[in-house]
Every structure is written in structure tokens, then in C-alpha cells.
């Protein structure tokens, strides 16, 4: 397999040049909706871990591996939420300190 030259960014992203934001506003879910759905998903993953932990503690049909994987998934989800929170705050302070 030969090494290919570096391609333009517009070819990498589905072959279309990046659109300015004014042309895509008003269509698709808003960022708030997207964030809300993501938080719901995190909650769901956390509840799944709760369920598996309860089932394991009460002698249910849950293996140790299943429990550990669910716990790690939940921990990763919480870590991601914390990181998103940090980046949003960072973005806010960056914009507030911007010289205009």
C-alpha cells in the first residue's frame, strides 16, 4: 500500500466544502436538544450500571465481567460530561476576555 499525499480537508469531510453557519441555522436539533439527549444517555448508562450492581449483589445472573464493564462505561460517561462542562466554561471565559 503506497503512501498517498495529504488531501484537502474538503475532500475528507464527505467531499463538500465547509458551509458557513448561516446556511445551516434553523434546521436539525439545536445544541441544547443535543446536549439534553446526551445527558439522558449518560443517565441511562448510569442506571444500567445500578441495575447490574443490584443484580450482582442479590445473587442474580450477572457475571463480574458484565458488572465491571458497565461500571467503567458509566465512569467514562461521567468523565465525558465533566470534560464537556470544563470546555464550555473555558470557551465562555475565552470569549468574555476577547478584545473587540
Amino acid at each position, binding site marked *: 500500500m503506497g503512501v498517498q499525499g495529504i488531501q484537502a480537508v474538503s475532500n475528507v469531510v464527505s467531499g463538500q466544502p465547509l458551509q458557513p453557519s448561516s446556511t445551516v441555522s434553523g434546521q436539525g436539533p439545536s445544541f441544547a436538544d443535543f446536549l439534553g439527549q446526551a445527558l439522558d444517555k449518560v443517565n441511562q448508562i448510569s442506571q444500567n450500571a445500578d441495575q447490574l450492581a*443490584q443484580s450482582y449483589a*442479590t*445473587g442474580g445472573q450477572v457475571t463480574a465481567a458484565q458488572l465491571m464493564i458497565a461500571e467503567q462505561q458509566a465512569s467514562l460517561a461521567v468523565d465525558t460530561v465533566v470534560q464537556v462542562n470544563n470546555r464550555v466554561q473555558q470557551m465562555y471565559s475565552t470569549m468574555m476576555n476577547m478584545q473587540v
Partner: protein
Amino acid sequence: MNTMQLLQLSLDTASMRQQVYANNIANAETPNYKRQDVAFETYFQQALENAPQAKPGEYHIPIPALNGNSSTIPDVQPTIVTDETSKVDNNGNNVDLTSEMTNLAENQVRYNVLVQDVTDRLQRLRTAIQGS
């Protein structure tokens, strides 16, 4: 009872089981000694599986299945039970050393898994609180 309390109770149970099994091994040669065990998970399974019988003219009471909701966990405490049913030796002792060793190893694995689980949960809470 919430999930954390349930996990603590399970850890207490595993700890109690360790002592009971060690006691069984120590008394493997004691005449007329009957082996003991800790009943905990079986109570849960009975409480979860036995649907309450509906009386005539009543609706069925829904089975309190575990669904991640803390209010559905039945209140069960671990209790030490004496095993009178298994096969008895000539000296009236029913401890099987190999079986007790297996139980001990299994209980240790279970204890470690529970400790790891509690550790993960506390670490997750810490992450959510400290935000880093």
C-alpha cells in the same frame, strides 16, 4: 435501601461468610459439628421470584423486580444457617474440606468484585463533585 447500602450489606455478608467458612474448616475434625453457611442471596431471589398470590377479587400485586430503582430492593439481612441435611461422617461431622476451600475461594473473588465496584462508584461521585 439504595444501591450503595445494598453493596455495603453484600460486603458485610461476604465478610461474615469468610468467618463462617473459616470456622467450618477449623472444626473439620470436631465430633458432632454441623457446618454453617450464610443465607443472603437466596432470600433475595425468593423475595423477587415469589409473586404475591392474588386473593379472589383482587388484582395481582406486581413483582418488585430489580430495575435500578432503589425503592424496589427488598429489606433482607444475612443470617447464619446450620446445614443439617448433608451427609454426615462417622463422628457426626458433615464438613467437607474441599468444598469449604472452594466456597472460601469463591467468596474471596466475590468480595474483591464488590470492593472494586464500590471503589468505582465512589470515584465516579468524586469526579462528579470535583469536576476534574
